[in-house]
């Protein structure tokens, strides 16, 4: 069941509270676009909006590749006839099961693994024997398009995060110190996203952008003794 707590108008109002109600420098149309970008980036980083889509027609006998349904940002899991498929990659299949693209399940058995090939395509192995089984994919779906009618499927606890990011990118056009200072908001936003998506914490680049250092906490040698107060 979707959240019914925040509307775009409310979100816009919260944003203006953070920028001193300056509706001249940040026009309503611009704020709506900033908020739309904020929810999209938040969704990419955390996979916040998820959904399940049944692929029309289900499996096809002997077919290994299937299109990811439109509206899905990226795939997380898949199941055939309500049996979960293991997660794999094309590389693993290519080098672990070299003839996989020519292999089909035997009668009475189902495909076992799925492997994303891009955000628009995925493969299953082995291919369905007879076809016609239900094929359901679950994953991150597109962030909601913000409109002035209805609620945004977003909890109150995530609003602050969205607003921090929105405030940061709103400062971009100011440049200078205002923008420089707002970089802290971006770091905090990324850190919070990292807490929701452990995959980000595995990336040294993301850790750097979050302001987390990979340097040794204990130096290899102590600094030289110096005269004076220490």
């Amino acid at each position, binding site marked *: 069941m979707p959240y019914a707590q925040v509307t775009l108008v409310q979100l816009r109002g919260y944003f203006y509270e953070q920028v001193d109600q300056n509706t*001249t420098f940040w*026009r309503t*149309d*611009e704020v709506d*676009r900033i908020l739309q*970008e904020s929810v*999209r*980036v938040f*969704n*990419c*980083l955390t996979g916040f909006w998820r959904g399940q889509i049944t692929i029309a027609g289900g499996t096809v006998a002997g077919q290994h*590749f299937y299109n990811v349904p*439109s509206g*899905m*940002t*990226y795939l997380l899991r898949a199941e055939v006839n309500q049996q979960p498929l293991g*997660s*794999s*990659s*094309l590389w693993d299949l*290519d*080098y672990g099961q*070299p*003839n*996989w*693209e*020519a292999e089909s399940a035997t009668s009475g058995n189902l495909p076992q693994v799925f*492997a*994303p*090939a*891009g*955000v*628009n*395509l995925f493969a299953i192995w082995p291919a369905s024997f007879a076809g016609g089984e239900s094929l359901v994919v679950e994953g*991150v779906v*597109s*962030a909601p*398009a913000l409109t002035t009618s209805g609620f945004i499927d977003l909890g109150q606890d995530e609003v602050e995060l969205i607003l921090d990011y929105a405030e940061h990118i709103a400062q*971009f*056009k100011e*440049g200078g110190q205002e*923008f420089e200072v707002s970089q802290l908001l971006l770091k905090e936003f990324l850190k919070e996203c990292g807490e929701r998506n452990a*995959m*980000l914490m*595995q*990336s040294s*680049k*993301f850790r750097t*952008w979050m302001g987390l250092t990979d340097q040794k906490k204990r130096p290899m040698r102590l600094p030289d003794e110096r005269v004076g107060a220490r």
Partner: protein
Amino acid sequence: MTVLNTEVANNVIYRVLENGDANAAFPTLLTTMFTPTEILDSMNRVQQAFLLATGMIVTRTTIAANAGTPKYQMPADSIRPRRLTWQDAGGSIKVLTQVDTWELDNGKPDWPSDAGVPFSWWETTLAQQQIAIAPTPNQIGQINLLYVQLAQPSVSGIAAVVVFAGPNTLPLANYFFVVVKETALGLVAQSLEFGPLLIGGTRYGLFSNIPQDTDAVAWRIYFGLTAVAENQYFRQTRAVVAAAGFTMIINAPGLAGIVPPPILSVPDDWSPYILWGTLAELLSSDGPSFDPVRAQYCKQRYNEGVELANLVLMG
């Protein structure tokens, strides 16, 4: 994919303060610091680079392979092969590993003359859009190709349509226009919307600066009475357009047809990273708009998108 090119362009306008005291309405710009063409061209380049760097959108096709033929042409819209497999006549399929000619020269010295079941592919010393498989196949088969497709670019640089006095069988009215490029792959790119312009009766419209792209087989001008709802089009082959000095004239009703929407080639949620990449390019360009600090920030945000895409696609 539903994000319009103009959505990104309007965001660019806001971020670089080109809107003035009005809502952003690309291609209207407050100053001459950037031109609409620069913004569109930059967006096109960034989109290609993003798709290339991430392999986010892939396309599958097959290439028929002959015994004794090692080299094959890639599809015209391929910007990067991602994965090749060899399928023999019996239906067995094996992945081909990418190698380079140094590896082949030193690891399998007789490879240029050897024939057998291919196990690798290479492109290091070949012309663009060409790949080769090694060893040379000794039987017919099929290469299954997974590749990154060229993104749908926007047509830019077309001079605004000019109205001239002359016969026109179209009813006199205000029309909107969109120029669309047609290649062997179909309708692949389109311009921004022009208009409204009053033509018909004794007034006709002339489009100048139609791009000279050699891959175009024809150009279409969609037009209609309602903005973003052009409902008829006029089509001319590239040869005819070239003979007319890369101009096209609208002086008669067209065929029924609806202009395809100019959308980005990346999924909606990834569109902010195209915006940041575009801003990075624009703010890095020499001149009054040069802003290395913010350009570097934008580049970092673009790189964030590439890194994230690689993380989620890794599984």
